C-alpha cells in the first residue's frame, strides 16, 4: 500500500523471541508456557536476596544459531543490568545486553529478494506477567494486580532491524520470514499467540530523499494483522499531523486492537533512564571460534535457501518468491517436491501439485514420494488427464497407497485417444448448435459448457485441455 501524497513509510522492527530451551536463562526452572501461575519458580528467577544467576549454555547456543541464520557476526559479549521498577520484574532490573551484544550486523532476505538489515540480536531475560484486575486493564486504575513469575527468566533474543522497511506488507513479510527462520533454527516455536514472538514497530514517515522523520514506537502488536493495521494507522496519523504543520512527538504508543488506534504511553521526556551497567554477577561470554563455526555448520537450510532450491527444481520457471514455492517452504513440503524430481518427476508440475493439492504437511506425510513421482510421470506422458491425476493423488493421500497406476486402472482412468476426442467434440457441436454459435461469436465462457458435457459423455475420461483446444480450433478462435 502506497501512502498518500507521496509520503514514504520508514519502519524498523524489534522482535522479542522466547527461546525454546528446556530451562530458564539463569536457573533450572522449566521454561514452559501455560502452567499454573507461579509453579516454575525458584530463588534465582524470583530474584530472592542472595541468589545469583548462572547462564544457560543452551540459551547462548540458540542465540548464536539465530545470529548465524541472520548472517550476523557472533561476537564476545557481556550482560548489562537495565534498571527500572516494575512489579513483574523480580529484581527491579532486567539482565540484558547493551553495547556489547552477542550478534551484530546481519540481514534478513525477504522472499522477493529484498534485504532488511539486522542491527543486532541480543540476549536478555523475560519478565513475569502482570494481570491488572479492574476496569482499565492497565496498571493505572487497576484495583489490584496478579503477578505470575513463571515467565520471569525465560530466555529471550531481541532482534533489532534497521529502518529499512518501507511498507506495512513488507513489515508483515519480514516478521513471517523471521518466524520461519527462528523455527528453522530450532531456537523458537514461533507461536505469536502464546507470546513466543512479540513485535514492536518504530514508525516514521518522510518525503523520499529527505532525512528520517521523528519516529514513534508502537507496542502491543500481537498478530501480523495488528502489525499491518497499526503501521498503516500510525503512518496516516503522522502524515495528517505533518500536513497540518504539526510536529511528531517522539514517544511510545500503545496499539488498541478494538478501536484500531494507537495512543500515547509515554513521551521521550518521560522515558526512563535505565542506568545500564555491566552485570557483575555474570562473566563475559566469549564463544570460541570452533563453537561459532560448529553452530553455523550445524544449521539446517534456511527458508531463503530452500526457496532457491525449489525454484532451481522448476528450472527457474517459478521464482523463489512465487506463491506456490512460498507455500511449500512454509509447510515444510520441500522434500516431497525435491524427492519427486529426483525420481524423474517434472519440477514445475511437482511444485504446483504440492502447493495446490497436497497443501499441508499432514497431507504430505501421507504421500509416498516415489509414487507421487510416478503419478507426475504418468500425467506428463498424457496417460492421465489433469483431472484424473488430481483424483488419483487424492486417493493416494487418503489410502496412503503408493502405486498410482493401480489406482488409475481400478478407476478405469485412461486418457482419451485424440481421435475419439475429436469425434466426441463434433457430436457435441452438432447437438448444441446455438451454444456453438455463441462460442464462434467469441463468448469463450461457453467452452466450459462443452468441456462439462464432454466429461459427462466420457465418464470423466476426456482431457479438458484437449477438448478446449479442439473446440477453439473448430470455432476458428
Amino acid at each position, binding site marked *: 500500500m502506497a501512502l498518500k501524497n507521496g509520503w514514504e513509510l520508514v519502519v524498523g522492527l524489534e522482535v522479542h523471541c522466547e527461546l525454546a530451551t528446556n530451562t530458564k536463562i539463569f536457573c533450572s526452572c522449566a521454561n514452559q508456557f501455560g502452567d499454573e501461575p507461579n509453579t516454575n519458580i525458584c530463588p534465582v528467577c524470583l530474584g*530472592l*536476596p*542472595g541468589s545469583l544467576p548462572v547462564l544457560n549454555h543452551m540459551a547462548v547456543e540458540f542465540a548464536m544459531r539465530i545470529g548465524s541464520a541472520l548472517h550476523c557476526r557472533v561476537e564476545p559479549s557481556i550482560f548489562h543490568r537495565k*534498571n527500572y521498577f516494575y512489579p513483574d520484574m*523480580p*529484581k527491579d532490573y532486567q539482565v540484558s545486553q547493551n553495547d556489547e551484544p552477542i550478534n551484530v550486523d546481519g540481514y534478513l532476505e525477504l522472499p522477493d529478494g529484498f534485504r532488511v538489515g539486522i542491527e543486532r540480536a541480543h540476549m536478555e531475560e523475560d519478565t513475569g506477567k502482570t494481570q491488572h484486575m479492574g476496569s482499565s486493564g492497565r496498571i493505572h486504575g487497576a484495583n489490584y494486580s496478579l503477578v505470575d513469575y513463571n515467565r520471569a527468566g525465560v530466555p529471550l533474543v531481541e532482534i533489532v532491524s534497521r529502518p529499512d522497511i518501507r511498507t506495512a506488507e513488507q513489515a508483515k513479510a519480514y516478521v513471517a520470514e523471521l518466524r520461519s527462520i527462528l523455527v528453522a533454527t530450532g531456537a523458537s516455536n514461533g507461536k505469536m499467540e502464546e507470546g513466543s514472538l512479540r513485535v514492536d514497530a518504530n514508525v516514521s514517515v518522510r518525503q523520499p530523499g529527505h532525512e528520517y522523520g521523528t519516529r514513534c514506537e508502537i507496542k502491543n502488536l500481537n498478530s501480523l494483522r495488528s502489525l499491518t493495521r497499526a503501521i498503516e494507522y500510525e503512518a496516516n496519523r503522522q502524515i495528517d499531523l505533518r500536513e497540518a504543520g504539526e510536529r511528531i512527538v517522539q514517544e511510545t504508543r500503545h496499539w488498541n486492537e478494538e478501536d484500531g488506534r494507537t495512543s500515547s504511553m509515554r513521551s521521550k521526556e518521560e522515558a526512563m533512564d535505565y542506568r545500564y551497567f555491566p552485570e*557483575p554477577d*555474570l562473566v563475559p561470554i566469549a564463544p570460541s571460534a570452533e563453537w561459532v563455526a560448529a553452530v553455523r555448520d550445524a544449521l539446517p537450510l534456511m527458508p531463503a535457501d530452500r526457496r532457491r532450491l525449489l525454484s532451481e527444481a522448476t528450472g527457474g520457471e517459478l521464482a523463489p518468491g512465487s506463491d506456490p514455492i512460498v507455500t511449500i517452504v512454509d509447510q515444510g513440503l520441500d522434500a516431497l517436491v525435491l524427492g519427486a524430481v529426483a525420481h524423474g518427476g517434472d519440477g514445475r508440475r511437482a511444485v504446483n501439485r504440492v502447493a495446490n493439492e497436497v497443501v499441508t504437511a499432514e497431507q504430505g506425510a501421507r504421500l509416498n514420494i516415489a509414487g507421487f513421482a510416478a503419478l507426475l510421470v504418468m500425467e506428463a506422458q498424457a496417460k492421465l488427464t489433469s483431472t484424473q491425476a488430481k483424483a488419483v493423488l487424492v486417493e493416494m493421500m487418503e489410502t496412503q497407497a503408493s502405486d498410482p497406476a493401480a489406482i488409475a486402472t481400478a478407476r478405469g482412468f485412461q486418457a482419451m485417444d485424440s481421435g475419439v476426442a475429436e469425434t466426441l467434440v463434433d457430436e457435441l457441436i452438432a447437438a448444441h448448435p446455438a451454444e456453438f454459435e455463441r462460442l464462434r461469436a467469441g463468448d469463450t465462457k461457453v467452452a466450459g459448457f462443452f468441456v462439462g458435457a464432454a466429461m459427462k459423455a466420457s465418464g470423466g475420461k476426456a482431457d479438458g485441455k484437449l477438448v478446449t483446444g479442439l473446440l477453439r480450433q473448430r470455432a476458428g478462435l
Partner: protein
Amino acid sequence: MSAPTRTVVTVSTGDPGTAANIAADVRAGRRTAVDVLAQHFARIDAHEGDVHAFNLVLRQQAGEQAATVDAAVAAGIDPGPLAGIPVALKDNLCTRGIETTCSSRILEGWKPPYSATVVQRLAAAGAVAVGKTNLDEFAMGSSTENSAFGPTRNPHDHTKVPGGSSGGSAAAVAAGFASIALGSDTGGSIRQPASLCGIVGMKPTYGLVSRYGLVAYASSLDQIGPFAHTVEDAALLLENIAGHDPADSTSIDAPPPSLVAAVRRGRADGVPGLRVGIVEELSGEGMSSDVLARLDVAVDRLRTAGATVGHVSVESTKLCLSAYYLIAPAEASSNLSRYDGVRYGLRVSQGAANVEEMMANTRAAGFGAEVKRRIMLGTYALSAGYYDAYYGQAQKVRTLIIEDFRRAYQQFDVLITPTSPTTAFSFGDKTADPFTMYLTDVCTIPSNLAGDPAISVPCGVGDDGMPIGVQLLGPALSEAVLLGAAAVIEKGN
C-alpha cells in the same frame, strides 16, 4: 550507659580452646559438641545483653546440630573437620527457614527458602551455627551503628564500636559467644572489625568463596571470609568454605587451597626469603602513632623470621576511596532495587494510590539513612550523562589499581599496612560526617578493588589499651602465603 566493662575471652588460656582444639576433641570423643555449645551459651547468657552481637540466637537449632554431631561420633561416623565448633553467621547470609534481616527493617521477618552455600558447607563439615550476627544495615558502614536493631558494643570496651560492617560477628568471637564466625567484606567489613576487636579476620581472593546466598551489597567487591581467635582457626574455617560453586558464576573453578598446613609451616619455619613491602601511602599520614608503632613491631617479627623488608609506593591507593564510593553505591543502588514491597519483607501500602507509591513508601520506611545515601549516590553515578564521569571513571581507576598492585607484587610477595588508621572509636564519634567514617576503610578498600586477598592479624594494643591489627596483602590466591606470614606475627603476641 553504665561504666565500661569488658567481656573479652582469651582462648589460649580459656575453657573452650581454639576451634581446631574443639574439633579435634569432639572428633576424638574427648568432649561433646553439646558441652562445647553450653560453654558458649553460658557466655551469651552472661554478656549478650551488654554486647548485642546477635540479631538472633539459634538456641534450639544449635542444640539439635550439636546433638547430631555427638550422635555421629558415638556411631563412629566422622562429623567433619569443623565438628562441634560453634560458629556465628553474619545476618546477611541466607539461612533456610531462619530470619535473615541484613539488620534492615525492610527485610524484617523474611525467612529465606534456602541456605547460602557457605552455610551448607559449614553444616556439612559439622559446625554448629549459634546465631545470626548484627551488622551495619546491608553491610554499609564501619561501626555497626547503622543497624536498624541497635549497635553492637566492642567486647574490649563497651563504650567503643566493634567496627563494621561485620561488627556482630567480630564481637561474637571476641566475647566468646562463638569460636569462629563468618562475615562479608566489601571494603574492609571483616578486617577492620577484626582489628578493632583484637581477632583475626580475612578477606579471601574474589571468587575463592561462593557468594551464593550472601545478600548482595556490591557484587563485584563482596566476599565472604572468616573471623577467628587464631590464624590457624581462620585457615581451618576458610579451607572448609572455599572452593568452586557452580551456583556462583564468579566462583573460581579450582580446588580449595591447603591452608592449615601453611599456617603450621609459618609457625614452625618462619618466612625465610619472604619479600615484604611496606606500603608508603598507607604507613604514614593519617595513621595514628600507636598504630604505626605496632606496624613496626609486626615488620620486625617478619624480619626476625627470615623476611626481607622494603618500602613500596602504590600511588593509586590514594584514588581507592573515591573509586570505591562510586562503584559500591552504583552496584548497591541496583542490588537493593528488589526491596520494593511486592514479594517479601516490609510493605507499606497505607496511603498509596498505586503500586509506585507503595514501592516508594515501603523504601522510605524500610531503609535507614546510610542505605538511602548510598542508593542515591549510586543512582546518580549511573545516570545518563554522568555515567562516564563517575562510574566509568571509577572503573578505570580500578584497572589502574590492579596494575599498580601487579607491579608491586613483582618486587614483593606480600605487602603490609595497618588495618585501621586508629583503634576502636567511641559511639557517635564519626556518625555526624559520613566522610570521616569512610576514611576508616582507607587501608582495606584497595584489596577489594583489586580482588586480592588480605588478612588482619592482632599485633598488640594501642595507647588506650585497645587492640590493633596489622594487614597483610597479597596477589590473587596467595592465601597460604598470607596465613603463613600472619602466623609469624601472631606468634610474637
